[in-house]
Each structure stands twice: as C-alpha cells, then as structure tokens.
C-alpha cells in the first residue's frame, strides 16, 4: 500500500514475457517495503488457512448440515408433497434453459467454457449432496433438463421469430402455476405458508417482493419527478419517510399495525404481511435508483417526443422510461440484492426463512454450539445467489449497451 497507480483503461496490455518471476517481482516485491508486506500477509494467510483447515477437519461437526438437509431447503413442507416442489424446480429449470438458449442464439457458442464449468459444478453438487438417492437423481435430471432446454431454446430462437415475447409470457404464466403448486387448492392438497420454510421461503418472499416493488418504485420515481406539485409532494413524503426508518420498524408495522388497520376479523397471513412490509420498504429505495436514471435523460429527449406529438403518458412510457431503466439497471439489481439479503430480517419476526430455520436448528439441543458450521453453510448459499444476481446484472448491462 506504499504506492498507488491510477485506474488505467488505456494502459498497454500486461506483457506475458518474463514468466512467474517477473510477475512476482512486479506485483509483490517491487520495493523492499512491499516485499516485507507481502511476506507478512502471506504468513498471516497461511496461518489463517491452516487454522481453518484444522478446525474444519478435526473440530467441526458437519453432521448438522446433512441431518437437516430438507429443513434448510424447504422447511417443514410435507414430505409426501415434495413432488410439487420438484415439479416447480423442473419448470424453472426448463424456462431458465429456454431463456438462456434464446438470449444466446446469436453467440458463436452456446456451451462456453464458463457455462460448462457451471453445469459441471451443478452436476457435482447433485452427486455429492447429502440427500436421498431419488433427490439426487431428480436434481441431476433438472440439470440435464436445463442444458437440453438451452439447446432447444437456441434452435427455437433461430427458427421462430419473436420467440422472446413468448418466453416472457411463459415466465408470467409459470408464476401462477408455481403459486398453485406451492400453496395447493384446485385439486391439490393445500399447504399453509406456515409449513413453507428455508431457502424455498426466502426465494418465494424475495421474488414476490421484487415483482411487487418494481412497478411501485417506478411509479414513485415518476411521481417524484412529476411537474404536478401534489403528486410530487406525496411521493417525496413517502420516499423520505420510508428511507428514514429502519426496515425492522417497517416490519413492525407489518406485524403489529396492519391487523389494526384492516377491518376487524381480517388478519392476513404472517408471510404475506412480511412481503407487504418488504415491498413498501424496497419501493422507496428503488424509486431513488430509478430517479437517478430519470435525471440522467437529457431534456432534449422529452422535447423531441413532444415535437413528435406524443402526449406525456406516451412520452414517459416509450421514450423516457426505457432509457432511464437501462441506465439504472446496476442500481436496481443492487436493490434487489439487498432485498434478498433483507429477507433475513424476517427471522426476527419468527418467519422460518433460511436464517430463521437455521436459528431454530441451532436451538435444537442436539446441535447446540454448531454455529460456524451452519452459518458458513447458509452464508455460502446467500453469497452464491447474490453473486449470481450481480453477474446477471453485468450481463444485462452489457447486452443493452448500445453505445460503441
């Protein structure tokens, strides 16, 4: 940390000549202070790594993970109804594969090295995961479905024009199918939200909250930028008040005040109240992210739209919003990532999502004190999802970038 260099995009490419020694000298031992720093940090890292490995292989008791495998992923969902969850998993795998194939229809290669590595990792996970044989086979089947659907999607994308719109419809339709399969009714045995749990519940709550808060956030952002004083004032009030209080206070409203505000006898489900709280909270933050995008659109765009004879609503819908949303994609996805992480707060209001179910596992006398094992395990799960979302955001950003 003795010297610094500027971020240089136009710097000459790093030369590969010289090999390992030259690289070491340039990056780790370019002066004596850096040399000392490198040695000290390496020693520390080795010590940390050794202690961790020692802990992981001698002290840690990993049995807390396989023993509660189902709990982490689906909570107390009834055992005999698991096929419904597998159906959902398969459906999502097929749709993801199709979307992937269709989006990648114009690239040189569908199964790039990265894609193959990811599929391989999924496959390895399916083989080694500590679940019954049928679960592992079903998981592997879903991975194969994903790959097959990707291949099929690529073929479809080449032969059928406008397939992209159909896949969007399919996603929307699949949401209702998923809801039906999850909750039951209409011929299926109904499973109350109290039995949903673990990663399943985390994903359900995040997806529904994201879907709901997005339109609300966009509307609030438009309201805040509106030329109508009343609309602007109401939007500003909402956004600033919500952003001024912690999420846990909003969940407090959801838990304790919503039953009060609704007509007597109407008491919505715990999970739906939590979704409402998360949505109301995230919409205010999302509005600020979208506002950033709206402010970046030059005035000329709006004037040009007026000159073309578009009315304000059409100007917003066709000219301003598409550009503004494109600019704010990184911020919006960032907000989705924090919403996903914020679902952990629901464990405080006794909803058994992934962290909540982990806490109840840790409260089980036979697993007492196994904190690190459990926290590392679910930490990896959270990290994976957030990391995937941020990679996805970078991909979308790159594919929408029309500048040269």
């Amino acid at each position, binding site marked *: 940390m003795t010297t*610094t260099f*500027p971020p240089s995009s136009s710097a000459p490419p790093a030369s590969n000549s010289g090999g390992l020694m030259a690289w070491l000298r340039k990056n780790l031992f370019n002066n004596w202070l850096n040399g000392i720093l490198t040695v000290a940090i390496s020693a520390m890292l080795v010590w940390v790594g050794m202690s961790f490995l020692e802990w992981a292989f001698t002290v840690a008791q990993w049995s807390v993970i396989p023993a509660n495998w189902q709990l982490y992923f689906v909570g107390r969902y009834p055992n005999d109804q698991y096929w419904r969850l597998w159906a959902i998993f398969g459906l999502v795998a097929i749709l993801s594969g199709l979307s992937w194939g269709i989006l990648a229809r114009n690239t040189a290669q569908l199964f790039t090295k990265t894609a193959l590595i990811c599929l391989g990792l999924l496959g390895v996970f399916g083989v080694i995961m500590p679940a019954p044989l049928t679960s592992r086979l079903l998981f592997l089947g879903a991975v194969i479905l994903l790959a097959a659907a990707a291949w099929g999607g690529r073929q479809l994308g080449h032969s059928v024009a406008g397939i992209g719109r159909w896949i969007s419809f399919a996603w929307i339709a699949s949401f209702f199918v998923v809801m039906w399969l999850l909750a039951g009714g209409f011929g299926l045995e109904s499973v109350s939200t109290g039995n949903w749990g673990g990663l399943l519940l985390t994903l359900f709550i995040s997806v529904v909250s994201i879907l709901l808060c997005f339109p609300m956030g966009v509307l609030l952002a438009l309201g805040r930028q509106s030329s109508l004083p*009343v609309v602007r004032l109401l939007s500003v009030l909402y956004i600033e008040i919500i952003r001024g209080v912690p999420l846990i206070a909003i969940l407090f409203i959801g838990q304790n005040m919503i039953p009060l505000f609704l007509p007597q006898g109407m008491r919505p489900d715990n999970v739906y109240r939590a979704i409402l709280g998360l949505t109301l909270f995230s919409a205010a933050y999302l509005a600020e992210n979208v506002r950033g995008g709206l402010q970046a659109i030059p005035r000329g765009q709006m004037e040009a739209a007026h000159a073309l004879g578009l009315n304000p609503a059409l100007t917003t819908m066709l000219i301003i919003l598409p550009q503004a949303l494109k600019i704010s994609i990184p911020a919006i996805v960032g907000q989705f990532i924090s919403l996903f992480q914020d679902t952990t707060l629901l464990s405080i209001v006794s909803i058994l999502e992934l962290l909540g179910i982990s806490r109840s596992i840790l409260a089980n006398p036979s697993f007492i004190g196994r904190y690190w094992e459990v*926290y590392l395990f679910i930490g990896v799960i959270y990290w994976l999802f957030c990391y995937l979302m941020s990679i996805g955001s970078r991909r979308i950003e790159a594919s929408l970038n029309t500048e040269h």
Partner: protein
Amino acid sequence: MTPTGDREERIPIWRDQRFWNIAFQVLALAAVILLLTTLFGNALRTLQSQGRQFNFDFLGNPASFNIGESVIPYQTQDPYWKAFLVGLLNTLRLIVVGFVLTTIIGIFAGIASFSNNWLVKKISQVYVELIRNTPLLLQLFAWYFGVIFGLAGDQPRRLLRAIFITKRQGGGVFIPWFTGEPVSLTSFGLLIAAAIAAVVLWRWRIHVMETQGASGQPQAIALAVLGIVSIFLFFFGLAWQFPQPTEAGGVTGGLRMSLEYAAILAGLVFYTGAFIAEIVRAGIQAVSKGQWEAGRALGLDAGKLMRLIVFPQALRVIIPSLNSQYMNLAKNSSLALAIGYPDIYSTASTTFNQTGRPIEVFILIAATYLTINLVISLAMNSLNRAVELKER
C-alpha cells in the same frame, strides 16, 4: 393548438392538459386521504372496541423491565420515557463510535484496492465481495455467536496481549483505556491543544512558503518537536490502564464493553466499511487520469500524489455517497435487537410488548430514526460544502 385567429375554437376540456393536470392531482390526493382515513378509522375502531386510546400518557408509567446496560442510572421502576432515553443513548453510543471506525476501515480498504501489491489488492477485493454479498444479520450472528462466544469463556482470555474477554456475569470485552484522573485529563487536553497548534503551524508554514518564498524550516522543526511531545504525552501522560484478571476470575481496569456491544459494533463497522470502500474506490477512479499524470509530471511521489492531488478531488465524489452509508449504519443499528443489545428499537419493542400500543411506539421509533438521519444529513451537507469545488 396555437390560436390561429380571433375566433379561436375552444379546446374540449378532455383534451386540455391543464384540466387533466388538476384533475389527476385532486384524484391522487383524494385517493391518499381516503386510504389513510380508512386505515386510521379501522385502527381507531379496533382500539375503541378493545377499550384502548391513542395518547402518550403511558410514557410516565413505570417501565418495570430491566435494561442490560445503560450510561445513565436506570432502575426498573423508572418511567417508560427514561427507558427510551437509555435506549437512545445506547444507540448513539453505538453509531458514533461506528462512524469513526467504519470510516477508517472503509478508506483503508478503498485505497488498498489501488495498491500495487497484488496481495493487498486482492484482500481488499475479497473483503468487499464477501461482505457485500452476505446478509448483515447473518454476519451479526456470526460475530456474536461465532466470534465473541467462541472466544469468551468462563475464564478471562487474553487477546493481542492487552485485551481480555470473558462471559461471566459483568463480563465483556476489556480494552486498555486511560483513567479519568486529573493528570490523564490534563494530558488529554494538552493533546487536543497540540493538534490545534499543529494545524495552525502547518497553515502558517504553507503561507510563508507560498507568499515569502521562505524555506519553512523553523515551522517544520516546531512541528517535529510538537509531534515528539505528543507521542510522549500519548504514551505516558494519559495514564493508560491495562485490564488485569482478578483472582476471582473477573477482570478489572480498562474500558469494558459488553459482549453484545462488541459484536454489533464489529458487525456494523465491517459491513458498512465494505460499502465505504467501494465508494472510496469509485471516487478515486472518478478523478481523471490527467490529474495523476500532471501530478507525476510535477515530480510528486505516489504518497504525495494521492494525498495532495487525487484524494481531495475524490472527496467531492465520496462525501455525498458517504452520507447514505452513515444513515444505513444508523438504521442497521436497530438489528441490535437480534442479539440483545438494548438500543432504542429494542427498548421500544419491549415497551410495545408490555403496553400494547403499536401506533404510539411506532411514532416514537420513526421520529427517533428520522431525527438521527436528519442530523447526519445536515452534518454531511455542511462537510460537503467545505470540500466542494469553489467556482468563482
């Protein structure tokens, strides 16, 4: 739609944008008022049917719950408002210390990502990616149940030679601190005076160097002397008190932090630090390349280049975003509830459980956090004005 002649045809009202502007606003206002009156009407009806009322009188009643730690004397019979005050002070104690520590960590990690030592750069990146992609609450649990409870045993354990940690009754994390004796306080005052004198001397030195072309050597020598004196004062004048284990198995001396406080402080500081590191990194990246090159052309070494040229300009980008990170830290401090540190949200939540007054308690919570955020915002805005580009 411009008037073309004397006998202008009136625009039908449904095509008049002005009409729609007003109509839309009236509709929006009416909808919001309707929604709010329905919600509060329901709430009032529910409250009345349960024989409850909306007022803040309960604040004078005895709280009759215990609070684990408090900076002001507090007893169980004290009224609710005092319990709130204790919680508020605990929150402030947490976030003010948190601001200082997280800023230090964030700036270090942010600058480290520009280091030309590959290891330092990677560690900074891994830290940021790891922290930002895992939930804060999980991190807090890991700090509290994993780190703190992993370290704290019934017997005091010594860490880094001078810190003690124990979970016995009245235990906690003990760090070296200075005693409140007169000599220590005097030294503290002298240190502050020395800091002010150093700033004055530094300005004076720059002034004479710029305007008179003087070498500035006398001032530099004075600064050096001041520095040496300050170091002596710091180590010997402050009367540092090191915690010592007692024979009974406890620890005396030093500054005691409760385990809960230490855990939530560590969690918040490292979490927010990662976000600040990203902001610092982006801020430094925003300084145009020409500035770096000009600085190097002037013959500045890398340290001076960062300190004199790049960082002051980066600050203009950094400070507005820091504002929201400080606000996030303040809001996230409410997660203290999850590990049992009695902050304002935690005491308010207990109050609600005892009194069953959701609306009043929520108003108190919301007002507290809104005020805290407003104060942070005002402070950061005035700081921002100090560093922003003065255009003439």
